């Protein structure tokens, strides 16, 4: 970027890109801090206050939904990670036709439009008496996470050299021992990435949470969407809740960025 115009042009581009990414965030943050009067023309709110945050945090409905979201996300992460890791290990190592056919099936699952199952999944969950339970909702999420997780994880396993396993097999190790003892320690970065992916997929999910919850397990996305559809729009408070909802994401933000970069690419390219 030499020459007279290069540097200012790049600076301008960077500025515009940041404006694009940050304007809604900054504005919602301002509204979440606004006092009595909301701005009706370009400008800042008259008075700033933390009252809206206090209001949101002391609302039983809100902190329950936050807790529900976290519990369900943890559960969904556990189920999907523990079931997809062994499967993806097999998919990475097996040469069999059955395995590659199944792998394609999982790709099909992965690209499926969720909406097509909205009512049937409700019926199935009702049959297993899993509606409005933590397990039910997290299984609902898991169904969408497992296919993605398997494809990502397979990408990581493909990178683990096979020589180690071959010597272990000579020592008479079973696939289970191979997986836990030899391969997994080498694939830990992949596992972390997949767990994070699973956690955030579950934490952000809306449609299935809407369908599979009644009251006790209502998650944050469902609760927040309800505020807009209820025609009871209290912008200050729901902006504050929006800001609070980012905390788990922000806590892992740097991991999220680096693992997502790698993880997403493996999922795309290596699968």
């Amino acid at each position, binding site marked *: 970027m030499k020459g007279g115009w290069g540097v200012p042009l790049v600076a301008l581009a960077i500025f515009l890109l940041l404006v694009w990414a940050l304007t809604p965030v900054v504005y919602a943050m301002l509204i979440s801090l606004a006092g009595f009067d909301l701005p009706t023309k370009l400008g800042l709110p008259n008075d700033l206050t933390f009252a809206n945050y206090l209001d949101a945090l002391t609302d039983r409905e809100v902190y329950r939904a936050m807790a529900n979201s976290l519990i369900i996300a943890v559960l969904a992460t*556990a189920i999907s990670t523990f079931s997809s890791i062994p499967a993806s290990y097999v998919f990475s190592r097996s040469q069999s036709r059955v395995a590659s056919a199944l792998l394609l099936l999982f790709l099909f699952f992965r690209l499926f439009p969720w909406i097509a199952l909205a009512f049937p999944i409700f019926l199935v969950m009702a049959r297993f008496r899993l509606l409005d339970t933590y397990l039910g909702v997290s299984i609902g999420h898991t169904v969408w996470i497992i296919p993605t997780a398997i494809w990502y994880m397979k990408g990581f396993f493909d990178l683990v050299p096979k020589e180690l396993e071959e010597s272990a097999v000579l020592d008479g190790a079973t696939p289970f021992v191979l997986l836990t*003892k030899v391969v997994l320690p080498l694939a830990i970065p992949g596992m972390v990435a997949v767990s994070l992916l699973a956690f955030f997929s579950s934490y952000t999910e809306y449609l299935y949470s*809407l369908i599979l919850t*009644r009251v006790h397990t209502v998650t944050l996305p469902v609760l927040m969407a309800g505020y807009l559809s209820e*025609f009871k729009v209290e912008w200050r408070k729901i902006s504050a809740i929006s800001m609070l909802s980012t905390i788990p994401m922000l806590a892992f933000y740097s991991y999220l960025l680096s693992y997502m970069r790698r993880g997403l690419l493996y999922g795309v390219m290596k699968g």
Partner: protein
Amino acid sequence: MMKGIATRALVILLGLVFLLTSIPAGSAGAPVTITVTNRKGWRSTEGIKANLPQFEKATGIKVNWIDIPPGELTAKTLAELEARTGAFDVIMASVEFDLAAYYRYLIPLDEFIAKKWGSVASFKRLISPEAARAIVWEGKVYYIPFHGNVQFLIYRKKLFEDPAERSAFKQRFGYDLPTPPKTIKELVDVAVFFTRPEKNLWGLGIPLGGKYPQHFLEHVMLGAGIDVVDLKTRKPDFAEGAKRDRAVEIAQFLFDLLYKYKVIPPGAKTMGHVEMREIWKLGQLAMAFSWWGDHWDKLTSPEFVSAVGEVGSAPFPQWPGGPPGRSGGRMSIWTVGIVGTTKNKDAAWKFIEWLVSEENLQTEARTSGSASHWIAVDKVSAERGWLAKGLVEALPKSVPPRLGFLKEGPEIVTAFIEEAQALTVASVSPKAMVDRLAKRIAEILKK
């Protein structure tokens, strides 16, 4: 050794799963628990909800009161009923089309009613005729009403009584400022008169977000004697002839309010009645039309009165040429019924008896301003000033939405809402909107 770790991890996982699944969905422990659905954030049931501990203490029945956002209530209730999950014991249902959809999953209440009120006939005499008609399906009573409402007009007395405004109005229109307007023409004149966008004052606030434009149109149409669907012939009532022309006039009326007279605040197109109430509170409206029965206590509260002065209320003027004795339509009837899968029929009935007790229905009127369809209670509530004059006058002259008596109701309502929204945002002309809607309804009924 690694195997040991894996086993332990597995045990921990299973333990975790067990722990989380063993958290019961409902609260257990109490001898009898019944689950009741409720529209979340509905002001009319807030007071009743607060009375719940008394009922629980007196009967030993635990009530699991479930709040579901209004937009999701019917879809969720129906899905649960169809899947026979047994999740709900008592459900709340509105005349809009819930009554038609739910009753096959419910138990008839005739025996309970006979035990409590002597006979079904004597029970029906206790409630309004329209409600008595709506709760009967295939000859049996499935629902007990507890809430009645209708959209009506409110106006700011301070503005209407201002001598300067009165003389200015007389000078401009040649007659005294009508307080409140009694005809559609007067309504338009007054709305035009008070609309001063530069001062952030609008003549007439009507919430027009989401489903509300349909509420407005159906109200005026029923007042004009046009049913959406003729229940006898099962055809759209405004497909042709004089009724079609009148329906076009009504659609044109809404269109003109928005785009010719420009008396409605433009933001109204995304608003519901709660937001409209906030605009009222800011003093930006001279008149407003909506479900004010749910907000009457707020509108008359010191906070509101000190902000914008006293509020007056009246029925929305009837469309010229409508049937005599009728004011408008779209009367709201909310009821409760008992789900067939319940294991606690008697407890559920005890709850319903308590819900429609005089004390609770009066609480409802006092804490929100809505009626109950129970004649005696509503009379007392009106006398004590808990109900708006507009509501008291409009309710007996209203009819419930006809779609509530049709199984095609939801499909027709969906089509009606889409067309009414299209009209509101001027993407279709009033004439085309009416004809297109009639065509769509005819198609739905043919299927």
